[in-house]
């Protein structure tokens, strides 16, 4: 058969065309990850339903035995913590995807192409955020079904959703960085060892005031606790309160922590990606 050899398009010269290429490449990578969903719907559904199962377990299995500050409804109390937890556990998916691409040489192939170098991570980032938006939507629907409500109107509720996605966005770069450093998808176990304490050493299920002093301090200063407290306030759901500076300034910390993580891990990831070639 005859093969028509495609001519390579000329590389971009202006800033604008460079940007257009970078966006097109980023979209190609995002599209790749979205195609995975279509190819593996079962995995996506399990991934979405697992947190729902956890909610049901806590709401109906343990919920009866829980005393809520101010005598509020347990499920109202539970849901913001569950939302934040879904965001935190997303790190594992990001890590696995990034490290698997490196281990299999897919990242090297991308790097040997004349594509925009930023696209690999930007595309990954966009796909993971889309996944998290979907996951959060499912969790909100699940919350509404078990009796959780927001009470402060749509504005604060949207702000709460924004804080949750900000946390996910910041942790995404932690996942990218760890994936680039460890480049072994099996090491997801090690990541779990980091993620689980972050999720449970928090104010999600228990009041830091009931913990030993040092542990309570860690729990109060935990980035996830800040997001959980702030979203409880914004949704108008019951929370622990507390006298510490961290507990009093949860909304500030819910912004500051993710921004700090971003300031640290975004440049680290970019640098690490560049030094793959050293």
């Amino acid at each position, binding site marked *: 058969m005859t093969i028509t050899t495609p001519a390579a398009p000329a590389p971009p010269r202006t800033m604008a065309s460079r940007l257009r290429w970078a966006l097109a490449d980023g979209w190609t990578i995002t599209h790749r990850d979205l195609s995975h969903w279509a190819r593996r719907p079962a995995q996506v559904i399990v991934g979405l339903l697992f947190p729902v199962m956890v909610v049901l377990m806590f709401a109906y299995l343990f919920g009866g035995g829980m005393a809520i500050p101010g005598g509020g409804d347990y499920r109202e109390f539970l849901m913001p913590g569950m939302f934040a937890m879904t965001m935190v556990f997303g790190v594992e998916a990001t890590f696995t995807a990034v490290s698997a691409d490196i281990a299999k*040489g897919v990242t090297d*192939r991308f790097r040997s192409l004349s594509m925009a170098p930023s696209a690999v991570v930007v595309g990954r980032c966009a796909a993971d955020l889309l996944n998290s938006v979907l996951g959060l939507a499912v969790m909100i629907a699940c919350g509404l079904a078990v009796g959780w409500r927001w009470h402060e109107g749509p504005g604060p509720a949207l702000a709460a959703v924004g804080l949750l996605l900000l946390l996910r966005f910041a942790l995404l770069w932690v996942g990218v960085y760890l994936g680039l450093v460890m480049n072994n998808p099996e090491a997801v176990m090690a990541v779990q060892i980091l993620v689980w304490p972050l999720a449970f050493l928090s104010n999600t299920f228990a009041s830091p005031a009931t913990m030993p002093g040092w542990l309570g301090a860690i729990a109060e200063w935990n980035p996830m606790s800040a997001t959980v407290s702030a979203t409880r306030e914004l949704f108008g759901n019951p929370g622990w309160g507390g006298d510490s500076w961290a507990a009093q300034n949860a909304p500030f910390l819910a912004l500051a922590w993710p921004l700090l993580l971003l300031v640290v891990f975004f440049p680290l990831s970019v640098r690490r990606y560049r030094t793959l070639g050293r």
Partner: protein
Amino acid sequence: MGSTGHAIVAEGLRKRYGDTEALAGFDLAVPEGTVCGLLGPNGAGKTTAVRVLTTLLRPDAGRAEVAGFDVVRRPEQARYRIGLVGQHAALDEVLSGRQNLVMFGRLYHLGAARARRRADELLERFGLADTGDKPVERYSGGMRRRLDLAASLILAPPVLFLDEPTTGLDPRGRDEVWQAVTSLVAGGTTVLLTTQYLEEADRLAGTICVMDAGRVIAEGSPEELKSAIGGDQIDLVLRDAGQAGAAAAIAERIAGARAERDQEDRRVCVPVRDRVTALTEMVRALDDAGVQVEDIALRRPTLDEVFLRLTGHRAGASEPAGEVAA
């Protein structure tokens, strides 16, 4: 292409990782349209060399040009003109073969329609048209490699790098890849192939560069390399292992070269220059000495032996074999 007529040029490349020098003054010149086999054991620096030449790794020193472009100063130009098939099939396992090719086509900025057309052409060409819609995770090793090759050929690059393209494949998969590479070379592509399989280099490459400890230590056609170490070999298989010492002494006296002995196989092997004379003399001398010979054969040396002579250790073995003189 470069004015020199060389598709790949490397001069004095160095790369150090901690205490190990992966590249220690690596020189290479591959003329356009030829296949160069980079042969060496694990850890010789083959992959490091390929990673530098494909712009994935910055060298500490030295320079390299691929298709006329400096890989450090003009990496984006070089990337347009190369294809890389690494040691692992670098494919998305979840996506189908066709989806993979379309994705890579889009990353080459072909546009959606052209990327799809190109994917179909390549699937057809590599005998994957029927399986193009299956996810790659269900492909056999040989199919993956062929798809991997197809993905590196989307822009039909003038220079192709194959880093151990058949490692881990069964004989059938290896054959499939060899055929694919052979047909590419017929189309004029310059290929740099790394391998630890001497058979593979012998079969595919016109020129072989033997690499050890980060440098090219010998270069030539397979035939040249074989003659360079003393032409033909005489193999003796003895009836009685106890006579191996006597047989080796006779063989060394007649050939004037060092004989290799393998006690367990009752085998003695020696390089000879004047093949027919040496063979006749050896048969007579062994007979006179009462050494019983089960089999005697005259043959060309294998590349394994070439490698052993050049490096002091066998291909694939990381430890030196010991007393063998280079």
